[in-house]
């Protein structure tokens, strides 16, 4: 599998990351070697095997439904890069007329 320019662009979009020109070159070279190593997985015959999602056997975990103090909201909001009062300020994403 080869990561060409189009696929790299798509992966940057999915990752919400902009790479520099040098990073793009380094990634394509490094990823080619890694994908070559990983390609051996395609030879495994695993049709009968179900996948795993955790190293431990998952069981339902219950706890008492008790009210406990939550994390301090002010301390959380204080970490936001841009805020107004008790709100985190973000770019407008909905334009007038977008409502369904």
């Amino acid at each position, binding site marked *: 599998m080869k990561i060409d320019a189009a696929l*790299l662009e798509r992966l940057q979009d999915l990752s919400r990351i902009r790479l520099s020109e040098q990073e793009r070159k380094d990634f394509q070279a490094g990823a080619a070697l890694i994908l070559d190593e990983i390609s051996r997985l395609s030879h*495994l015959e695993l049709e009968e095997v179900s996948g795993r999602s955790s*190293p431990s056997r998952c069981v339902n975990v219950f706890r008492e439904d008790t009210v406990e103090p939550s994390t301090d909201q002010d301390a959380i909001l204080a970490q936001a890069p841009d805020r107004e009062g008790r709100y985190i300020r*973000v770019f407008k994403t909905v334009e007038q007329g977008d409502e369904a």
Partner: protein
Amino acid sequence: MKELEGIGPLALGRLIQSRAISCVEATRHSLEVIQRREHQCSAFLKVTGEQALTSAQGVQKRLDAGDESLSPLAGVPMVLSDSVCVKGTATTCGSKMLEGFLSPYSSTLWERLQAGGAVLLGKTALDEFALGISGESCAFGPARNPWDTRLASEGGAVAVSCGEAFYAVGSDGFVALRRSAPFCGVSSLRPTYGTVSRYGLVAGTSSLEQAGVVGRTILDCAQVLALIQGRDSRDSTTVDGPMLDWNTSLRGLRIGMPESYLDVELDLDIRQAVLAASKQLETLGASLVPVELPLADDLLPVYYVMACGEISSNLARYDGIRYGYSAKDAGDLMELYRQSRGRALGSRVKEHILLGNLFLSGDGGEDYHQKALQAWELILQGFEDVFTRCDMILSPTAPRTVGEKPGDLLELYRQSIFTAPASLAGLPAVTIPCGLDAKGIPMGFQLTGKPFGEGELIAVGHGYQSATDFHLRIPGEVGE
């Protein structure tokens, strides 16, 4: 204080309880060592000296008042890796993305240590988001191995090796903690997945990572694990494992020697040191048996695909909006994401995120991810079978004593060959120093055990350390 050099946390705890030394004196000792050695070793991202002294005074008051909730390690100065959240203090996880972030809550493991009277000296350096094998990729510069300061290392191992701290707790995410400890001449313990709560550890590879402990001896690590282990309602993967008991006899224990490891290209010094260690374990009563690891040739690809997938998913939370770095010059939301992540995340982290998205999306790599999850099941079943033939597995900790080359993804991947299986299968492992190579760098071996087999691993490690002195050597200071 010369008399504190080289002693373990339990011995110091006894001195404190007998009032031979106060908590404040012990903390001042550590801060003096830090002042003396930090310029060479850079173990810390932040030293919190004033807070440590205040904390030591508080612990001393509790001791004097007869507080029975204090642990045997009360008043002992220690460090956390900067992936462990402590309320109100900076937590960067080695990334510029989290520079300036103050954690609004504490991790469960720190709450448990604090309740027992631990004195925190500061936070230590680690690979960015624990994604590495030697601390090399820390965005604020790596810690330096005190045995050869040209080599990068995980900060907790460095702090213990230099005598700056009496023990360290951090993320055994990729494998840097377990790999760094023996190369710094100290011991490490990674418990079974689910033994220690991950609540408040910065998440990277959630299925593979677990908190680990570094100490001069493996018994030091065991004493610390006893304080932090156990079920936590805030981490649903935690369990109450069996009581830690390391009074197992080595006589009759079967130590597996994986046949696939014979073909791995190793430094000759490491091969000889691990073989010598295996002979020593035989002398102590254990028997060596050949074993075959499940899907031995495919363990690393499975590990890598899963690690990339989990990193890409976990690190999606760093969006420049809620906390962490935010690009101030972005013109719209998408640019804010791309510029914030592009600028503040390191190259290695970005590479893993991109590969993770390849494996998780419908762009040609998804078959690898599905295969990896299926192979994971076989690997976990395979280890169950291996542990019917032996009680633990012996291996080196890494093929070479030299660190990784920055930017070399394949080298990073290959250097994980001995340490990745325990992470992948959620197994406990200990690493133990077992000699110096020709360049004077400590080397180590690893024992990987069955789930909740920590006690046996500690017993064997302790038996080995009772018969050898590799763990007692302290690196000299420049100018000595």
